[in-house]
């Protein structure tokens, strides 16, 4: 393990512990939802981190299409995988929060529906990568990555785009109306998730690169035999 990875691991661990302290000890209890509102900090931060991860996938998919560098494809895939992890966490924690706050597990309202569509698109991205091989796999998945990336702003702004009557989620300005301690906690948890994302991206990228190198050496080795 490199020095930078070790430092990032320590920083991430400290930030995660501090996040837990901030959520349970520092942030005030929201008066209408009470304890269940504490899900908000991890739920929203996971959603923001998924957006960042899918954004990175979008950028590196474009870069791969333009430059055709394998490294760009590897970064795009690694980022999409971590984004999918966070998006799954959002989709699993959301219904548990909704059951108490809205008295329903799921509602086909704009934010939930677009998030599910986004999740399914990235599931499709990985199915595509399993089916295809070689350059075709990289090109086609990069195209799908770009297409799926365009959905991210739609998910974020879905609460503003569609009619207010059909919404259960608050609009995008709500985070500015919260008490300062809540906002601070939210941003801190988001940055601690971001540090986890960065660490996983580095590890996943290195692993994918090593796998690629192994396959190349193996092919050479088989050719020699």
């Amino acid at each position, binding site marked *: 393990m490199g020095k930078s990875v070790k430092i990032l691991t320590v920083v991430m661990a400290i930030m995660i512990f501090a996040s837990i302290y901030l959520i349970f000890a520092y942030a005030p209890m929201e008066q209408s939802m*009470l304890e269940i509102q504490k899900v908000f900090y991890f739920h929203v931060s996971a959603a923001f981190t998924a957006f960042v991860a899918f954004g990175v996938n979008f950028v590196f998919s474009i870069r791969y299409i333009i430059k055709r560098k394998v490294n760009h494809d590897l970064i795009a895939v690694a980022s999409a995988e971590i984004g999918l*992890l966070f998006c799954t966490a959002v989709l*699993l*924690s959301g219904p*548990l929060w909704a*059951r108490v706050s809205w008295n329903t597990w799921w509602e086909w309202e704009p934010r939930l529906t677009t998030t599910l569509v986004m999740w399914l698109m990235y599931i499709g991205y990985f199915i595509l990568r399993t089916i295809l091989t070689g350059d075709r796999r990289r090109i086609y998945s990069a195209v799908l990555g770009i297409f799926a990336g365009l959905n991210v702003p739609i998910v974020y702004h879905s609460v503003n785009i569609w009619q207010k009557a059909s919404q259960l989620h608050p609009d995008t300005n709500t985070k500015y109306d919260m008490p300062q301690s809540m906002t601070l906690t939210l941003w801190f948890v988001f940055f601690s998730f971001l540090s986890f994302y960065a660490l996983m991206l580095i590890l996943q990228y290195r692993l994918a690169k090593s796998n690629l190198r*192994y396959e190349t050496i193996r092919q050479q*080795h088989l050719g020699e035999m």
Partner: protein
Amino acid sequence: MRIIVLFSFLIVLGLFLMSQIPVVLTSNEVDEAVSDAIAQVESTAEKKGEAVPQIDEDEVTTAVKLAIEKLENDQKRRLKFLCAAYFVIWLAIMLYVIRIGRKQHALDLRLSQLEQDSPNSQEEPPE
């Protein structure tokens, strides 16, 4: 990495159990609090020279107990869902980290297999 995730999960669980367990009031505590409250109402009325109100202590105690029970059940439900939400997030992260660790382990195994199969590995290293 796995240890850190597991450790932090246990910390979450520990913090949750220590600080978020609802305060359960015993029947005696409720009886005592109701008696104190009624006595306080009666003494206030006496001080003001007003007629002492007739309060049925049993009825008040039953109403208070029902109210407390409802509040406690609501809180338990909220905490149960809060715990479940945090648990699924940590479970997802932990499974992902374990998956990366397994992939790394599989790669290490394949590399050592390749080294064994390599014809150069049989030869003496050049001096």
